């Protein structure tokens, strides 16, 4: 096992990694920007290094500064968390060239899976269904039109290097495809410096169901069941649960096998997530593979009893997986919701400012992953995630009741939060009966 690693992230996931390291007896180096200098979680690291000013580009996204911090503190490995540099293959390569271990899959695997067109091809070749669409990046508008007519409208236009819903467009006819294509390209260019887009069939009433996979350096691969993340707003996940209320054991087995087939084809190691669309007719389609720990990993931890960050560290240090596929059991139901400092009354505008009182819920079956405390200042530089609230109960009905109870208990004063929205969502018949798709939240909010 490692003696000392650097955590190249901030906020709750930095704290999450520090927690795992402390329990494993690994020393931690936390890097931070000037905007985060007062964060309480920094006290828990063995060392801290200020790497730059508030803006991410000059701190958490600045590869040389992070590598320098790793070198002067003499760490063996870097945990990238999620977001920031976590799926940056170049960062993983620089780590390698500096003889610092990047805790994640190889840069080659990341590059292969980071490009959606490549990933689709890889999945098709592994016999895993993908949403019908263009075989690769669409260059000519004529090609896009011909693909769309072949697979039938409505279609989606997606950025090949997209993520978080940016660069996504739905087109219902030739005209909207033409305009959408131009818009998606320039959006993708602005966001990712790459204008490649592709076109695929839009699947109505689909759920988002993803599988957690885990592979060791010895080539063993298993999956840890699924997470249903159908409650989204602008393609950002709001609520995640495991197991999915829409999967039969048989469907779980089939989709899990598909997830493993893609992972195997990509030579996948470490933790990763295979995302699928699940249509109302139970047909599923591979979308993409995320090469990092997910924000929503706690729901899988609750139902499997595993600590996924510890597993990441074990894998990176060369240990073999401690369990086989048949040892994986899902117990009860876990639900997570992301409490953001946003104003639901004002189109979810982020609310920076001081949290005057932060009193999280507790008690049985309740887990809170948060770096926030009374007196914490929400910085305008970073995302607005205040806390992840996770509940775990015997069954889904009890889990929903526990979530409502915990949300009622959660006191955040000083900034507006999404708690009121969740109280509505978890009281909604469609959610309670499991009858939702990825458009549910926006439809509920009157079109997002």
């Amino acid at each position, binding site marked *: 096992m490692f003696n000392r690693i650097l955590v190249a992230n901030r906020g709750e996931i930095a704290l999450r990694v520090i927690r795992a390291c402390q329990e494993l007896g690994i020393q931690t180096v936390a890097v931070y920007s000037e905007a985060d*200098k007062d964060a309480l979680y920094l006290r828990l690291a063995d*060392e801290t290094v200020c790497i730059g000013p508030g803006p991410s580009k000059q701190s958490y996204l600045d590869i040389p*500064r992070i590598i320098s*911090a790793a070198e*002067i503190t003499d760490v063996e490995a870097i945990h990238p968390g999620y977001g920031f540099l976590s799926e940056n293959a170049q960062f993983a390569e620089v780590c390698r060239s500096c003889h610092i271990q990047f805790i994640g899959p190889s840069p080659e695997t990341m590059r292969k899976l980071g490009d959606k067109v490549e990933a689709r091809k890889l999945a098709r070749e592994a016999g895993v269904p993908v949403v019908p669409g263009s075989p690769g990046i669409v260059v000519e508008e004529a090609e896009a039109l011909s693909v769309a007519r072949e697979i039938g409208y409505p279609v989606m236009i997606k950025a090949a290097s997209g993520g978080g819903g940016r660069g996504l467009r739905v087109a219902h006819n030739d005209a909207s495809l033409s305009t959408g294509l131009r818009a998606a390209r320039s959006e993708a260019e602005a966001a990712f410096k790459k204008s490649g887009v592709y076109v695929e069939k839009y699947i109505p009433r689909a759920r988002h169901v993803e599988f957690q996979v885990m592979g060791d350096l010895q080539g063993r691969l298993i999956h840890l069941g699924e997470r249903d993340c159908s409650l989204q707003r602008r393609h950002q996940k709001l609520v995640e649960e495991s197991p999915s209320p829409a999967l039969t054991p048989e469907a779980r087995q089939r989709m899990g096998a598909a997830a493993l087939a893609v992972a195997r084809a990509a030579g996948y190691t470490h933790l990763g997530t295979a995302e699928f669309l699940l249509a109302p007719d139970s047909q599923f389609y591979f979308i993409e593979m995320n090469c990092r720990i997910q924000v929503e990993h706690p729901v899988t931890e609750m139902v499997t009893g595993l600590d996924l960050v510890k597993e990441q560290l074990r894998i990176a240090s060369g240990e073999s997986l401690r369990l086989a596929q048949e040892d994986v059991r899902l117990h009860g139901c876990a639900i997570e919701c992301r409490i953001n400092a946003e104003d639901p009354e004002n189109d979810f505008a982020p609310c920076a400012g001081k949290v005057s009182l932060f009193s999280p819920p507790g008690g049985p079956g309740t887990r809170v992953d948060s770096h926030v405390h009374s*007196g914490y200042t929400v910085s305008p530089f970073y995302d607005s995630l205040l806390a992840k609230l996770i509940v775990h109960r015997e069954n889904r009905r009890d889990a929903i009741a526990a979530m409502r109870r915990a949300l009622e208990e959660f006191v955040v004063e000083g900034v507006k939060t999404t708690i009121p929205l969740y109280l509505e969502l978890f009281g909604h018949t469609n959610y309670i009966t499991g009858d939702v798709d990825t458009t549910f939240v926006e439809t509920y909010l009157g079109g997002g």
Partner: protein
Amino acid sequence: MDLKIVRELIALMEQHDLSEVEVEEEGHRVRLRKHVADARAPVGNPAAPAPAAGRVPAAPVAAESPAGAAPAKEAPGTAQVKSPMVGTFYRAPNPEAAPFVDVGDKLTPESVVCIVEAMKVMNEIKAEVAGVVEAVLVENGEAVEFGQALFRVRTA
């Protein structure tokens, strides 16, 4: 009455973390009082500026407090040369050479004062202020973090 003065007083209060201001002058009197917090502020959370001027984080990177890189208030007439990057601090261009600067040396903003090595690259750091070197705050070969004070310079 001039509201600008009130605003300026408030700015002063905030800047200086005062809880009350009262100004009386030829029949003019302004009194401002701020709700005195903060038994509740977390320890180690220096939202308010450090009380004493000239507090210098001389500790190396492994600072106990995450606030190690918090800007320390400078005494009047002095300035600090701070590290613009994370890396290893060297006072001389090579182990055999003399230091770029020493206490008592005069600096222009263009003077090279040290090297910070980051990712095998030797970065020459310029003073960016004019004055006289009053103190070297970091040992040769020590690690420095972003914003860490390297030299104290008398500017006045």
